[in-house]
């Protein structure tokens, strides 16, 4: 029994790491611009498909697809921003719908280019078991868990400590005042979209090397990321990590102790519970205090 629980916790932790990676890009844009990019999941998926294309076309390690994926996904992310910046009023709501529209376009583009077949890496190393005493995981999961932690640390530093990070938050808080401080709002916002593109790229390659991809996946990725972002509270990066791991562990424990059919249910209940107890998310409220 204890083996069962231990493995379950470990799986949940690693799953949480991958959730965090997917959520991070969304959280960065939400935290800095109060914009929820509903096309984020599609950007992640795009990166995953580029990894697939590179691997199957050139017969090389999917990790080597990262440079190409970075270029393509960042351009796509910047394009998303380009459209968002054209919104004249009600940015919060309209950006939601706009990015949703972009998501539809991307999903169908992926469907047209790569068809509805499912894909997954054929690289054996990624899928091999990594055994730690009585605990098992896939090599790729562990690898990207570490990548996720590193990116998370970088993202946190950028947002909380760097001049640019502060500038984006300032723009979100009061655009006119930010201009007075010498901040070019468009430029700073563009940078956070580029960053989101970078994060989406890593998330996509991780997804491809440890999971199964198909064109319809984008929306559910966005929803997961969205949930974690909200759990985290106002774009808090430590919150993303904690929220994602919490979700991963709760889901995996639900399966172990009860049934996998209820995995989504407990995830959602957890989400509602956190929201009702801490309306600003796990890390949103504590920042308010001095």
């Amino acid at each position, binding site marked *: 029994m204890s083996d069962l629980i231990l493995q379950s916790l470990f799986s949940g932790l690693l799953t949480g790491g991958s959730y965090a990676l997917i959520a991070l890009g969304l959280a960065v844009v939400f935290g800095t611009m109060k914009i929820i990019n509903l096309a984020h999941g599609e950007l992640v998926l795009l990166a995953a498909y580029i990894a697939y294309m590179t691997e199957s076309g050139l017969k090389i390690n999917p990790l080597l697809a990262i440079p190409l994926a970075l270029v393509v996904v960042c351009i796509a992310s910047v394009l998303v921003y380009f459209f968002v910046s*054209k919104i004249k009023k009600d940015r919060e709501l309209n950006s939601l719908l706009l990015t949703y*529209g972009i998501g*539809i376009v991307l999903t169908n583009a992926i469907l047209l280019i790569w068809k509805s077949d499912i894909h997954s890496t054929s690289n054996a190393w990624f899928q091999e078991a990594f055994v730690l005493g009585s605990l098992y995981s896939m090599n790729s999961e562990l690898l990207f868990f570490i990548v996720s932690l590193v990116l998370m640390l970088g993202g946190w530093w950028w947002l909380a400590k760097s001049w640019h990070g502060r500038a984006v938050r300032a723009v979100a808080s009061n655009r006119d005042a930010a201009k007075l401080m010498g901040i070019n709002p468009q430029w700073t916002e563009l940078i956070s979209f580029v960053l989101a593109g970078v994060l989406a790229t890593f998330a996509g390659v991780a997804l491809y090397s440890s999971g199964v991809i198909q064109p319809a996946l984008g929306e559910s990725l966005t929803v997961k990321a969205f949930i974690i972002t*909200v759990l985290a509270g106002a774009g808090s990066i430590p919150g993303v990590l904690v929220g994602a791991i919490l979700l991963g562990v709760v889901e995996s424990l639900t399966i172990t102790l009860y049934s996998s059919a209820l995995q*989504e249910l407990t995830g959602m209940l957890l*989400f509602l519970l956190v929201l009702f107890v801490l309306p600003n998310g796990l890390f949103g409220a504590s920042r308010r205090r001095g």
Partner: protein
Amino acid sequence: MKQRTLICMVAAPVLYLLVPLLFGSNLYMMSLVVASLTIGGIALAWALLGNLGGMVSFGQAAFFGVGSYASALLTLKFGLPVFPAMLLGGVGAAIASLAMLPALRLKGPYFALAILAYAQIFRILATQFQDITGGSGGLSNIPQLPNVLGFDLGSKVGGYLVILTMVVAFVWAYHLIRKSYYGLALRAMHESEDATRVVGVNSTLLKASMLVVSAFMTGMIGAFNAHYINFLEPDYAFGSSWTVIPIIAAIFGGYRTLLGPLVGAVAVYMIDQLIFKNLIPTGHQMILGVLLVMMIIFSPAGLVPLLAQKFKRKTHVKA
């Protein structure tokens, strides 16, 4: 005001008589019209919640699903006649929305997502409670709309008349709420809740009642759909498309206007099915996406205000 009554007097006979006369024999056209009105009805309820309640809901599917299951089960298991069951379906959705009252404390995306979570929870519950709901197998042979005075409402034209009447009633209710002082207070609350409360507005109650009204409307539409399609299963009844397409439709038509959501639903659905689908058989939703993007950038207020503007300008030139 006069203009409005004029429009009503022209529109009513066109909708109730001319449409069935023109398209009644074309089952395909009629089923497109019915489907688009179904979406339009949800879009209207969504816009009511968004416009008056100030809440963006990503979970209308929750109400739709509850309404459809409630009505279907009442007719199947308790033998209730269809129309009372549909009404109770709406009531059921309204009761389900009471479970969401805690979510009213949440704002913006937080609220939107909380409601989405509810929709997921209801879907899973519908899958799990096999004894009552039939589980993932769903329900089939749900009774059709009845014969009334020798007229078969179960037919395409019948279904059309029923959904049309429902939607017209909802528009009327929406209009009444909106033009009342409650509507004004609700509109004020969106961005300045505290300011509204300190002048005596019980914002929680008002918001809650908008949620309940929106849930009721959506639930009734869901109930109608169950008796129209005669079949239900959880993934379908609680499917995200009941949330997403109405939102697109509402935005497209102009969610701040009374008729925008309806016009948007009919326009989007018809154009998509009649034109885009023929142009690009697979992946035509892509054009919908493009349309949505362009609409928000070039005319965020939606189609109806855009047309109204054009119309005004034209009459101006002529005058």
